[in-house]
């Protein structure tokens, strides 16, 4: 597998890591590269090894084989403490102390991460809580929080010590859509503040709006990585447009048209595979000349879901692990989805 990412500085550089638990191979030749200042997303089904990868990065677990470097340091050596101090982690479960108040949970973290007590630590706690709109509930016991509040508190705790690298494991798990969008927005803002984010998710739509880089994982292996556009170019190079007309018989004139590789007509809609999007104006002119009343022309831009399944199919995932290939339909472009998520 070739990396297509050229980055001047890698914050995370995991190379060919293997890790087993008894007979279970949790990580199997995993490679992850996270450029500084980016949002990288680990995509994969449950059990793909995403959580284990996060644990490997902080040095909470060591690799059996392979190397992990974070900020250029080895997290399982004596440098582990420094690596962990520069990371902020939100795990799949919020990992909060239910019997303590929100304030005490944050203070515990502040002290463990070296912010001390009182003074600046209190200011940092208030600022972190305010950032995720949870400051009003800091006096309450966490056991009484809703799932959304717990996630917000966990996120506040993760940024409390101003980490350079944020590791987020399914950060929107259990959240309602409004809260999830708000959290994703906040995560996006994190990189604006100079942080690097590595996020795990199996929700493709969630990653769609966020990911600068994606790592597609399966069975503990990184199948592929790169920017979504780069992966789309490599795995879904075909150019397609969706054309809708008022009468289906006009679409028959697409047959033999220059620039058209193939087309598929269903009722008054056609999905047309073209050699190049440059051919589209000519195709439209020919259809109009043939008397077609065109109601819409939409270029098909593969989204992350298309890319994800294309990569997995290409890498040999068995048919029962994947849904059948979906017929391409009109959909907003990836940049549009990203815009919506923002």
């Amino acid at each position: 597998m070739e990396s297509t990412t050229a980055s001047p500085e890698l914050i995370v550089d995991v190379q060919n890591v293997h890790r087993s638990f008894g007979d279970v191979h949790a990580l199997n030749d995993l490679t992850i590269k996270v450029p500084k200042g980016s949002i990288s997303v680990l995509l994969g089904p449950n059990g793909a090894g995403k959580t284990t990868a996060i644990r490997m990065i902080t040095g909470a677990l060591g690799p059996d084989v392979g190397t992990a470097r974070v900020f250029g340091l080895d997290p399982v050596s004596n440098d582990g403490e420094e690596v962990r101090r520069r990371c902020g982690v939100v795990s799949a479960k919020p990992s909060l102390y239910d019997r303590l108040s929100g304030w005490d949970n944050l203070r515990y973290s502040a002290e463990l991460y070296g912010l001390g007590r009182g003074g600046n630590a209190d200011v940092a706690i208030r600022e972190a809580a305010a950032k995720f709109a949870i400051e009003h509930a800091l006096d309450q016991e966490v056991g009484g929080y809703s799932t959304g509040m717990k996630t917000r508190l966990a996120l506040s705790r993760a940024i409390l010590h101003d980490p350079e690298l944020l590791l987020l494991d399914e950060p929107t798990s259990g959240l309602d859509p409004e809260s999830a969008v708000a959290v994703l927005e906040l995560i996006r803002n994190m990189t604006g503040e100079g942080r690097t984010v590595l996020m795990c998710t199996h929700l493709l739509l969630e990653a769609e709006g966020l990911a600068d880089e994606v790592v597609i994982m399966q069975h503990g292996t990184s199948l592929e990585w790169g920017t979504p556009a780069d992966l789309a170019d490599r795995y879904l190079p075909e150019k397609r447009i969706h054309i809708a007309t008022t009468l289906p018989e006009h679409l028959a004139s697409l047959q033999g048209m220059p620039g058209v590789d193939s087309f598929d007509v269903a009722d008054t809609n056609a999905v047309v595979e073209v050699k190049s999007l440059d051919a589209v104006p000519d195709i439209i002119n020919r259809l109009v000349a043939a008397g077609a009343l065109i109601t819409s022309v939409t270029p098909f831009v593969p989204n992350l879901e298309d890319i994800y399944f294309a990569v997995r199919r290409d890498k040999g995932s068995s048919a029962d692990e994947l849904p059948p290939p979906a017929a391409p339909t009109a959909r907003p472009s990836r940049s549009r989805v990203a815009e919506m998520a923002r």
Partner: protein
Amino acid sequence: MFGLDISRIRTVARTDLKQLKQAKDFWVPMTLLGSFFFVVIPTILLVTITSIGEIGVVDQISDTLDVLPAAAQTQIPETTDSGAPVSDAGRTAYALAVFLFAPVAVIVPLTISTAVGAATIVGERERGTGEFLAHSPAGVREIYLGKLIASLIPGYITTVVGFGLYSLIVNLVVGPEVGGWFFPTFQWWVMIVWVLPPFLAICLSLVLRLSAKVRSTAAAQQASGLVSLPLIMIAYSQSTGVLFGAGYLPFVLGAVAWGAALFFLARGVRSVTRSRLLGVAAGI
């Protein structure tokens, strides 16, 4: 010190204790247990003995004082400081107060600390908070020592407070019979300060190791019970020997127990690993 961040150890211990303070379902029964052994039973027994006077029951109990070791018998006063003879009831109450309640000082702290310690590491795993600790910069030795202290303090505080109350009760009830306040005796101080702490530490080092290695709090508590029971018996027998005034032996025993405690604590440090906090270590 030794590559340890003392403030982190203190933080882990303080946070654990704060959670314990919030857990009324834990400390209310434990307070009742301490009150029962340190206050209720001694008060009932000592008041009964000193108030029923010179009747047959007291005579029978006072006869049993003859079977006590000679070193113990010499501790029981025959006369008060002013030279007045001490009654049989007074001598019996004195013997009960000084010799009978040794197990109290052993059972209560070991029980409480074992209960706290058994849940401390496996509890982090069960609640999912072990993940937070595993990703934190805190070293595993710091986490272990913080949790050890947090487990030790409730038991020892109960002992100190209970010991204070017990001393007050003994002095108020038995003191007038023997010519004034006399408790705690030198032997009790030796037991509380020198002999009991290392046994507490040995017990906790084993309990924390169990807590790190088992799958559930319930399993940890059951296994801890098996570990702590023989230790309670050993500690009881040693404490009784101390109270009976076995010469310099208590100091030697205490020193040996401290040595053993340090050995077990050093080994126990290795039981806490990040993979165990996460619950992914082999065997968990």
